[in-house]
């Protein structure tokens, strides 16, 4: 599955490229300034999408490793795959992260109409909700380890810690950027068009990142639940 997804992703990107950039052109016959690639996305947005592609690859590989360890462990014994009972707090955590994403989306919408005041409140709420999500994740680990049923050598349990931890680290990285953007939202001079434009970009990129991490979490949650 992992391979299929990665290949599909790569193929998709390649085909998109070939179509957009018209590899059929004959550059040796053409002279003069060709309008060429009309790059509509700005550099930060492109950079973010390239980064998200890489992070997708990271999580796909993790998922592949999870499935393979589950199905093809060697030597059975005490470290055989035994599913863990997913703590119910994960449902609550998921809902909190969805709300954070909704708040971000709301902020993006407000910024599009230069409504900075509601945007910054929504942004701050999204930050608080994201921190709540992280606290919830930690509480899930604590409750699981408190049962005393699992050790780190229990494979399903160690994946249960590892996958959300990697996801959480990405969220923490996002929170640093979000904190900076929120501070700027609070200080921005609304008459300064350039500063406003930059902030609009920051808010938009943060929102994209949050939606992406929400999707990743939903994928991981589904994986943990279904196995």
């Amino acid at each position, binding site marked *: 599955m992992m*391979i299929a997804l*990665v*290949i599909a992703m*790569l193929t998709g*990107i*390649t085909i998109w490229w*070939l179509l957009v*950039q*018209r*590899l*059929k*052109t*004959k*550059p*040796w016959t*053409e*002279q*003069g*300034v*060709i309008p*060429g*690639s*009309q*790059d*509509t*996305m*700005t*550099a930060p947005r*492109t*950079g973010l999408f*390239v*980064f998200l*592609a*890489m*992070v997708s*690859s*990271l999580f796909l*590989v*993790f998922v*592949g*490793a999870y499935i*393979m*360890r589950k199905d*093809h*462990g*060697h*030597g*059975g*014994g*005490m*470290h*055989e*795959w035994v599913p863990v009972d997913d703590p119910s707090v994960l449902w609550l955590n998921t809902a909190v992260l969805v709300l954070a994403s909704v708040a971000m989306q709301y902020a993006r919408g407000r910024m599009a109409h230069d409504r900075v005041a509601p945007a910054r409140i929504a942004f701050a709420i999204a930050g608080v909700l994201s921190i709540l999500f992280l606290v919830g994740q930690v509480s899930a680990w604590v409750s699981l380890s408190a049962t005393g049923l699992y*050790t*780190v*050598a*229990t*494979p399903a349990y*160690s994946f249960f810690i*590892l996958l959300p931890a990697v996801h959480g680290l990405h969220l923490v990285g996002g929170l640093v950027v979000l904190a900076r953007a929120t501070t700027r939202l609070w200080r921005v001079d609304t008459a300064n068009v350039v500063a406003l434009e930059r902030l609009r970009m920051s808010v938009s990129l943060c929102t994209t990142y949050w939606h992406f991490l929400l999707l990743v979490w939903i994928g991981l949650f589904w994986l943990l639940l279904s196995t």
Partner: protein
Amino acid sequence: MAYVAIADRDHHLHDPDTFVTKYIWSQDHKVIAIQYGSVAIFVGLIALGLSLLMRLQIGFPDTFSFITPYNYYQFVTMHGMIMVIYLLTALFLGGFGNYLIPLMCGARDMVFPYMNMLSFWVYLLSVIVLIASFFAPGGPTGAGWTLYPPQAIAEGTPGVDWGIVLMLVSLAIFIVAFTMGGLNYVTTVLQARCRGMTLMRMPLSVWGIFVATILGLFAFPALLVAAIMLLLDRLIGTSFFMPAVLSMGSEAGTDGGSPILFQHLFWFFGHPEVYIVALPAFGIVSDLLSTHARKNIFGYRMMVWAIVAIGALSFVVWAHHMYVSGMNPYFGFFFATTTLIIAVPTAIKVYNWILTLWRGNIHFTLPMMWATGFIFTFVHGGLTGLFLGNVTVDLPLSDTYFVIGHFHMVMGVSPVMVLFGAIYHWFPKMTGKMPNEVLGRIHFWMTFLGTYAIYLPMHYLGILGMPRRYYAYGDTEILPESGVLANQSITIAAIIVALAQVIFLINVFYSLRNGKTADPNPWRATTLEWQTPETPPKHGNWGPKLPVVYRWAYDYSVPGASRDFIPQNEPPRDGAGAA
């Protein structure tokens, strides 16, 4: 256009005004490139030294008492890892990627210069962590460069206490550095090209570096995942990779893990890694051949397609490194097929290089000698790859010196030939001085002939059945007298090739001090980096005005033209489309 605005904006963002910001904490892509290159060559020299120690042991066993089996495996491991990751990847992408992308695309700098600077410093940190393992208790890891569990973290393997931990941490840090650099390379190519520079007008060097970076961004996560999980197995006793192990008659306390899983993860990174190194070499050598043969590259479009195709295919061939690990026969068939398919675009590239030379006005300059040398070594390395790509042929040859000969020719010597060609080619632009011709020629011939003296006999030894990774062979039937002699001659050749690299270093320092002042465009090349107002280019590259591109990168020997090259930024004669 948006990208022009970005390229111009950088100029105002990070003008260096002190020695520190200009040469140490520099955000200038050219300085970062040289920083990357210098560190990479430095660690490469360490790895070269390690290979000599290995060869001394193989060629003259029982002679050097300071080379113990314990050390020997450490040398093997560190040599491999340093050469593949910390030298080749860093030099091609961090070094040449940094130097060439903005200059060849007509940008003032990378789009995220601060992150670019961080990329170098984080890379340096990864190197320091790696080198620190030499001084850690127990020394560096001796697990082999593939770091296969269980033995990588099992008692008895050299460096199991500290070495393996530092290696895995260093790899993780390197991947962070690569990500920061890689985001810059891809985004700069996509967003910061000057007016008129369409993707299909980009020189093949940029195409190679661009696609290789995309491969890296997709492939390195697999290594990161493998490193994190192995580290957890080693440090806190998780059971991702460790199966039940009997050690010295007693149970090691591990079970359930899948060592094969590690191999899949490692090679899902490891095979694209071959092309992360090869694709920039393919691109750069295309530009060298075209420029020094004074002829447009043959089949430019096909060359671009081939780079993209090789990049995509490189993700579906990884298990050909695992034929002897045990797998479903149909998998073997699948991976053998994809491996042989990848030979098609690769062969297209080789034919196109040869056809570029065909009836060209070949100038055997220093860069050209290395470029033509590359065609030889690459064809030889590639052909033995066809042997090993087939399951039935691979099984008896697996883990023999045939494999060592093959991969050193194809991804050791060949990329290094291009690296030297590239260094000699762009040295005048980077330093403003010409490299010394005589020293360069001695360097070339010693290296080119020397590497053949090293690696050709290895194929013979491999067919005899001489296994790799052995500290000593003793008296065995598989190694006749001629084999012992071959091993000795290989060692002597290796020492000669290593000495040739000293000549290279002398050339670099001598030419920096006493070299002839370089013409801004000494090779009469068409690409943008040779059209900068100053040599070496100053910060911002282009003076007050960004260049405008009117043509592709290979207008050499155009019929009717007054010179045998037309720079990319030269407007058409009739003025059509001129800005």
